């Protein structure tokens, strides 16, 4: 009554700011999701009922692609620095420490390592690379040496944790896997994890907490 001229406030809110936020978040999520599968080696992992999320820090990632080629990747630069010293000493190579540290993965025999490190990033595609030789029928299983080098590199810094991840392709043949497992065993790495896709637990099995029940059709 006293203030009849007061303009009626609209109930609609200005959505522009909210829209800005929404699309900012959206672009953030799009970008982060796109970045994840930036691996040079395409691998389709099998699925398992394991529900533990794979670690993504302090990892030693052994990748087996669909042709059975083996690649080795590390994320810790200090470890890689220690590794390059050991390799240079043991193999009589003069590898560039900076290039070695920068490399995301290694996939060649020791003798070809200098050439491998010199490759530009664009040509680091799994199909074109030789992979670490593991076939003991054709030569020495160099994975054993690699794991030995990693073992001694980790000994130099004992506070570091080590997570060995094995990421194999569905179609990789067993001998490559066997060679990798042998290399791990030889160097006393007795615990490792296999990267898989999550899968639901089949109903009616023991894991589903229904002991001794026959599987339903």
């Amino acid at each position, binding site marked *: 009554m006293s203030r009849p001229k007061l303009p009626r406030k609209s109930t609609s809110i200005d959505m522009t700011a909210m829209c800005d936020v929404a699309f900012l978040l959206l672009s953030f999520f799009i970008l982060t999701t796109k970045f994840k599968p930036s691996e040079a080696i395409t691998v389709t992992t099998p699925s*398992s009922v394991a529900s533990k999320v794979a670690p993504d820090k302090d990892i030693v990632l052994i990748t087996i692609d669909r042709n059975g080629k083996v690649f080795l990747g590390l994320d810790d630069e200090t470890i890689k620095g220690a590794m390059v010293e050991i390799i240079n000493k043991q193999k009589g190579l003069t590898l560039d420490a900076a290039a070695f540290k920068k490399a995301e993965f290694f996939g060649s025999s020791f003798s070809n390592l200098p050439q491998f490190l010199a490759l530009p990033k664009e040509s680091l595609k799994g199909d074109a690379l030789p992979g670490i030789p593991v076939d003991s029928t054709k030569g020495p299983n160099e994975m054993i040496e690699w794991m030995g080098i990693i073992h001694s590199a980790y000994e130099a810094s004992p506070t570091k944790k080590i997570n060995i991840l094995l990421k194999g392709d569905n179609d990789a043949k067993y001998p490559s896997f066997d060679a990798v497992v042998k290399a791990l065993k030889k160097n006393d790495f*007795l615990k490792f994890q296999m990267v898989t896709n999550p899968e639901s637990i089949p109903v009616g099995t023991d894991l589903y907490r229904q002991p001794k029940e026959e599987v339903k059709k």
Partner: protein
Amino acid sequence: MAEMDTSSGGGHKKGPGVKKGKKLSTRVDLTPMVDLGFLLITFFIFTTTMSQATAFKLNLPKDADKPEDQNKAKESGVITILLGKDNHVFYYEGQLDNNNASAKFKSSNFGNSDEGIRSVIIRKKANTPPDDFVVVIKPDSECKYKNVVDILDEMSINVVKKYALVDISEVESQLVHVTEGQAK
């Protein structure tokens, strides 16, 4: 819902004659756009968390004590699973020798049927004292990594406590190849 609040802002007010004509606002209602934005955000959040890889833990035995472990297993409680190429699975219970090879050596698959390897494991587990039950997995050189993971997964699905990944012997490998040949 459209914005009609035109009294303030724009400095050019119309004369009294045109007062009733509603001036269309240049503002757009952004509510649906915000809806869409958040819908997409939820989609992306969900897909990122869904595609997070899980890790399947595997602890290896030390090489040295493996043969002893093997010998300790009672014959009656052992089931050996052989993996061949093209997702073929074979199994036998106890020991395999020349006389009973064909009778004991059975083929199976990864399916859910009664002949599937899961049912085989479950049956064997039910009929064996838990302490004696051991599964020996022998992958042939032709089998794929997927099969190995599948069978290890089967171990955790059926809560098999004792299992071992063992190299295939020459005899068994041949048997697998022969049986695969027959199946075709």
